[in-house]
């Protein structure tokens, strides 16, 4: 009896502590939210909205509205919805391709030893530490040369942009390989005894067991690509192909940050990630190694 009360009180305590942390963590997010409903385009740091209005949201969503002061119809010249779709498309495709490359490479590293494996591993993670900002000129030139041979991959194309993002794979290869290493060797051995081919082991056994980590990588890549504005701003000029993050920068100029619209754009931009996470949560939390092999 006492044990149960003790357990319950610990549970409630931990819940409260978590709630407290959550509120602190979401504190700035609250400000961003109320700023998006503020009509005077300033950052609201009081606790409530001063002038409530949906104008910022209408601007972002491409709905015309009437400016109350000048009585003119305001229509955003920026096709935010198109940019939003572009970003989602690019982020998902990149994440999928990264997963493809990562899992294959991680499996190769996990299962086989070959000449130069150690050095390959080391160079994978060390060379990626080079600040990518400085490599932009090189990538720009690469894509522009590539574009003259293969128009699909040149500057100002989504394919070229996705290609650039594939530079983040080495890190995730490490991550995936680490996860593979935690899969008990006995499973793999059992499969080999059963006469499975390498690819089957990869596809039917390792991948499903590694699902939680694959979900994590998908989300991480998606977020990184979706929020990135440096690379698309340099590589893409066609307004129909721009991404959402670059578009948001429109609202920031030296003196005049249009906070309201910026905040609304941010919330819109955060939605896909939150939705993806909510959907994929259940894959994240299944203990899939349960009972598969008796140790």
């Amino acid at each position, binding site marked *: 009896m006492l044990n149960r009360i003790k357990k319950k009180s610990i549970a409630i305590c931990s819940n409260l502590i978590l709630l407290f942390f959550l509120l602190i963590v979401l504190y700035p997010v609250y400000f961003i939210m109320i700023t998006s409903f503020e009509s005077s385009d*300033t*950052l609201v740091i009081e606790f409530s909205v001063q002038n409530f209005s949906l104008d910022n949201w209408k601007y972002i969503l491409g709905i015309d509205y009437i400016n109350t002061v000048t009585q003119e119809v305001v229509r955003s010249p920026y096709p935010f919805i198109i940019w939003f779709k572009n970003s989602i*498309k690019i982020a998902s495709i990149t994440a*999928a391709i990264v997963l493809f490359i990562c899992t294959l490479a991680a499996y190769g590293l996990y299962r086989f030893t070959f000449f130069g494996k150690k050095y390959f591993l080391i160079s994978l993670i060390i060379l990626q530490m080079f600040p990518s900002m400085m490599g932009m000129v090189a990538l720009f*030139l690469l894509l522009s040369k590539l574009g003259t041979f293969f128009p699909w991959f040149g500057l100002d194309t989504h394919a070229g942009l996705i290609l650039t993002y594939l530079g983040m794979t080495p890190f995730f290869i490490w991550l995936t390989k680490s996860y593979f290493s935690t899969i008990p060797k006995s499973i793999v051995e059992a499969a080999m005894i059963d006469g499975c081919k390498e690819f089957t082991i990869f596809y039917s056994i390792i991948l499903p067991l590694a699902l939680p980590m694959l979900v994590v990588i998908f989300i991480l890549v998606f977020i990184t690509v979706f929020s990135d504005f440096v690379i698309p701003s340099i590589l893409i000029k066609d307004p129909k192909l721009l991404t959402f993050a*670059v578009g948001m920068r*429109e609202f920031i100029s030296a003196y005049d940050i249009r906070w309201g619209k910026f905040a609304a754009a941010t919330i819109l931009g955060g939605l896909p990630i939150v939705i993806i996470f909510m959907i994929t949560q259940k894959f994240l939390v299944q203990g899939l190694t349960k009972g598969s092999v008796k140790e």
Partner: protein
Amino acid sequence: MKVFFFLCIIFVSTSLQSKAEEKEITLWVSNGNIAKILNEIAQPFNKKYKVTISAATVDNTVEQFKTNALGGKGPDVIVWAHDIIGTLVESGLITSVEISPSVRKEIFPVALDAFTYNGKLYGYPYNFEHIALIYNKKLIKIPPKTFEELLKVAQNFTKNDHYGFLFPVNDFYFSYPIFKAFDVYIFGPNARDIGLNSKRAIEAATYIKSFTIPPKGSGEKTLMPIDVDYNTMMRFMITGKLAMMINGAWSLPKLQAAKIDYGIAPIPTIRGKKALPFIGSYGFYVSRMSTHKILIKTFIENYIYQDDALIRLYKEERRAPAIKTAYNKLKDDPIYKADLEGFSNAYVEGAPMPNVRTMASVFGTMKTTLSLITRDKESVSQALNRAVDVIKKSSRN
């Protein structure tokens, strides 16, 4: 496997895009609304000459222009302020331009001045602007004519979460008029002569310091918080809690949206001397790699330099048109009359911001220097001496 093929199809289909037509003249602007207006102005030109002028919104326009030049690509025209001329010319990225004499005499000399470098014209100016004193008419009936009067008035207003006078003191663009009133020059006749640590400059900087840190024993209130910046100033102005600020016409739409009844006046004099601000001018630069220079010239002279086009651009940006006829038309328009008049004196007497390459270093260095001075982290003379050292060093590159 199926998923993989599906992905491949998406991949391929996104890459198949039609390439642009050959006769395309690209313009890069950083403001999307301006790009939209330029495209609309270009419609009749496109029809007549069977070319396509398209304005694209490009953030961080100048840096992008430079990066693209490395790869042999880039736009035909970029739209930017005049102060970047030095950098662009010295990198060989833009070409000098000619304006037909009949058009040229219609342009305000100060705008042409701004785009002249080493004696040649390197861009087509289309507007200009400067900062002035903007005040809340509800709180101030008659704007002060001298700075001494202004500070006294400001003292009365600064209490209970209200301020009498705010402006971004650490931003050299805003505090330059005060330096000018103290007769401080930035670049002397000799290239090595930077006048920002002269005795008069020290006086000017001390004067500015007194806004955030009133001299001991003067009994004055602190007029401005130590970390006053542009956003703070605007926030108080918009909520009606600020009596006077120094700002440019770009801020007027926000004031209107917040229903502030504002007035514009020249920056008050200091000890009888005029505090003239920098004049900034925006214009069209032509890339050296462009093969359509004459078409661009025709477009700008015959389509952009028309009154209705310039007036449209004014309504969006609030920067005064550089063509005299358009300017006068706006002055006669009752809606914009007061705004333009409030800004007018500096156009005649002011000088453009220097467009030499070192100017960027001046702004950056003075920002740090002034913030150290106004927070009393360093003595005025030491900070200014150091600033001049850094500027001199950067000008040697």
